[in-house]
């Protein structure tokens, strides 16, 4: 016999029983005066321990007491609940007998069975329905070792554990001694268990708890099904420091700092490298400068001697005009060489690397150079010169091309006027040398003479262009160079 808790299951069983064993006939015996017909079907309904009813008595609270083959059954008419009592509750036996029931005048109820009879007054029964059981956590084991704080483990304490002590087991007790074996316990470890767990064993084991905050709640119910208040225990499994938030933040920050530092170092390296490059270049330039000056000192003074000597002889000797002329050529040639060297030195001097410098030098030198001649030289350079830097080669070649162009005009063009003009457009220098002379010979469409070839080569070497354009009168030489700034 077992106690059914749901109505539908009970009905099912009833039908089964009726069909199988004709319990209907059984219940006919009970067709007494006070019983209502629907009561016949409550064999398997709602917690009756046994359906073989020997006797039924109504007590003074108008509730029913029935003796059955499985002890006494109490039916509470107010809330339609059953309460079963067996030999374990102190009855003579579970089996009672026919016709052995009696209700005394004071309300005492007597039931007889095979081993004797029981009597009691329902009024004096203390049900545990009114008393609350207690609950306690009686043992706590951490990593299978007993955890002892103090003997009286107070309510609502907090257990704080390191991350590696995360295997816990608990033992509970329901504090109600009316019918201890009927006591129940249910518990939940909040943040771990999803719902309350009802336990018969009254112990539980949690293994490998992850770092976090948990709340163990446990309740006990006595044999009457009354639940106690909750007993609570806060459990904190501390994360190892390497899993804590501040650690992650610190790691993040140091990682970022690391990156910033590395970037800084790398950029410093780059800067240092660049500085070394510049220093090297500077050293090279300085060396070049020094060499050229040394050479110039030696060669320059030698050439000056030659020039002076020949000039001296020119003035002193009163001999051949031819010799004088030759001596004149020697001194002119020598002086020209010194001048060329000065120009080389000018180009190699790093102090002279600006466009402005080039233009001043050009103007000065060309004026001086062409002063003795009848040719009228007009130089037009922009007044405001942008701060453009030119390399040694660029300066030198522009200078020499200009000099050559002007020399050509002087030597070949028989011109009266020559203009040297510079225009700066976007990032380009445009030089123009225009004369009003006889112009280029017709047979020459491309420059073939050595001088012209040289000019072209010089402009090409620095990445510029040059062209000769025939004018109505004379020639226009245009040479350009792109600069970056």
């Amino acid at each position, binding site marked *: 016999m077992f106690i059914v808790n749901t109505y539908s299951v009970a009905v099912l069983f009833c039908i089964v029983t009726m069909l199988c064993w004709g319990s209907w006939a059984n219940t006919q015996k009970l067709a007494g005066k006070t019983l209502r017909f629907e009561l016949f079907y409550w064999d398997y309904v709602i917690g009756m321990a046994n359906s073989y009813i020997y006797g039924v008595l109504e007590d003074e609270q108008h509730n029913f007491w029935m003796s059955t083959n499985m002890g006494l059954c109490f039916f509470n008419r107010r809330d339609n609940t059953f309460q079963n009592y067996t030999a374990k509750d102190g009855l003579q036996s579970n089996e009672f007998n026919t016709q052995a029931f009696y209700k005394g005048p004071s309300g005492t109820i007597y039931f007889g069975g095979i081993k004797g009879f029981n009597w009691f007054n329902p009024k004096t029964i203390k049900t545990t329905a009114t008393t609350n059981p207690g609950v306690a956590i009686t043992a706590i084991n951490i990593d299978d070792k007993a955890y002892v704080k103090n003997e009286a483990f107070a309510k609502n304490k907090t257990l704080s554990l390191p991350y590696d002590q995360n295997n816990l087991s608990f033992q509970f007790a329901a504090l109600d001694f009316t019918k201890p074996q009927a006591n129940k316990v249910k518990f939940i470890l909040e943040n771990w268990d999803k719902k309350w767990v009802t336990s018969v064993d009254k112990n539980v084991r949690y293994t490998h708890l992850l770092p976090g905050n948990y709340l163990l709640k446990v309740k006990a119910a006595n044999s009457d099904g009354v639940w106690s208040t909750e007993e609570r225990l806060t459990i904190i499994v501390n994360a190892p420091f390497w899993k804590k938030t501040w650690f992650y933040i610190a790691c993040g920050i140091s990682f970022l700092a690391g990156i910033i530092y590395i970037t800084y170092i790398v950029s410093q390296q780059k800067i240092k490298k660049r500085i070394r490059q510049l220093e090297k270049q500077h050293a090279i330039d300085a060396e070049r400068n020094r060499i050229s000056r040394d050479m110039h000192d030696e060669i320059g003074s030698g050439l000056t001697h030659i020039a002076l000597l020949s000039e*001296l002889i020119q003035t002193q000797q009163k001999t051949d005009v031819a010799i004088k002329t030759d001596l004149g050529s020697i001194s002119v040639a020598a002086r020209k060489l010194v001048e060329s060297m000065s120009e080389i030195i000018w180009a190699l001097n790093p102090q002279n690397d600006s466009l402005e410098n080039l233009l001043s030098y050009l103007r000065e030198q060309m004026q001086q150079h062409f002063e003795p001649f009848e040719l009228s030289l007009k130089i037009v350079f922009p007044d405001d010169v942008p701060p453009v830097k030119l390399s040694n080669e660029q300066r030198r070649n522009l200078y020499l091309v200009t000099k050559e162009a002007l020399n050509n005009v002087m030597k070949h063009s028989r011109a009266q006027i020559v203009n040297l003009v510079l225009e700066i457009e976007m990032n380009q220098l445009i030089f123009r040398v225009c004369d009003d002379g006889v112009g280029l010979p017709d047979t020459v469409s491309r420059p073939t003479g050595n001088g012209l070839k040289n000019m072209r080569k010089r402009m090409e070497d620095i990445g510029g262009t040059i062209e000769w354009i025939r004018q109505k009168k004379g020639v226009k030489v245009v040479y350009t160079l792109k600069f970056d700034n």
Partner: protein
Amino acid sequence: MTPIVIIEDDEKIRNYLGALLAGSGEFNLKASFISTEEAIEYFEFGLGDDIELVLTDIQLPGKSGIDLISWLKPRRPDIQFMVLSVYDDADKVFKALQAGATGYVLKNTSSNKLIESLIDLRKGGSPMSSQIARKVVMAFQEQQPYVDGKESLSDRENEVLSWLSKGYSYQEIADRLFISIDTVRTHIRNLYEKLHVRNKKEALRKTGFR
């Protein structure tokens, strides 16, 4: 006939200059030296009291021509100093100008040009190349404490200086500013004087005097 001395260590050039000066009829070569030390001795003994012009090379054994000028100029501010330079070495020439020289001429110059420059110097003119001019501009741009109004450049002088640094010739500048070429020369001479004064003051300031 202007009394002149020359300091030049190169024998051939010294002889050449001597001959040139003698032949010019304008200058009276009183003495020639091969080093600064010799020249200093000469003046210390009072032998150079009548000298008006000094023509000196910059590169000399021992002390340089610049040292000579630095020593002699304060003692004889009336003397004109012309420096000889192998090439247009703006740095060295500029230093000489700061020390008190009022003219410079390249060794490479033809003979008549050389004499011309000396005569020019005597008249009060001073040559200045564009590179030198640029250096002068920079020198005057440097901030200096306690600058006397008289020592900073006038507007005209600034103008002349800026055209010079662009490479314009004296004639071109004269045309542009509608002044005579002599005026241009005077301006340049004044520029040199102011440069020298400024330099002197700077040197004094560095040694702790005012």
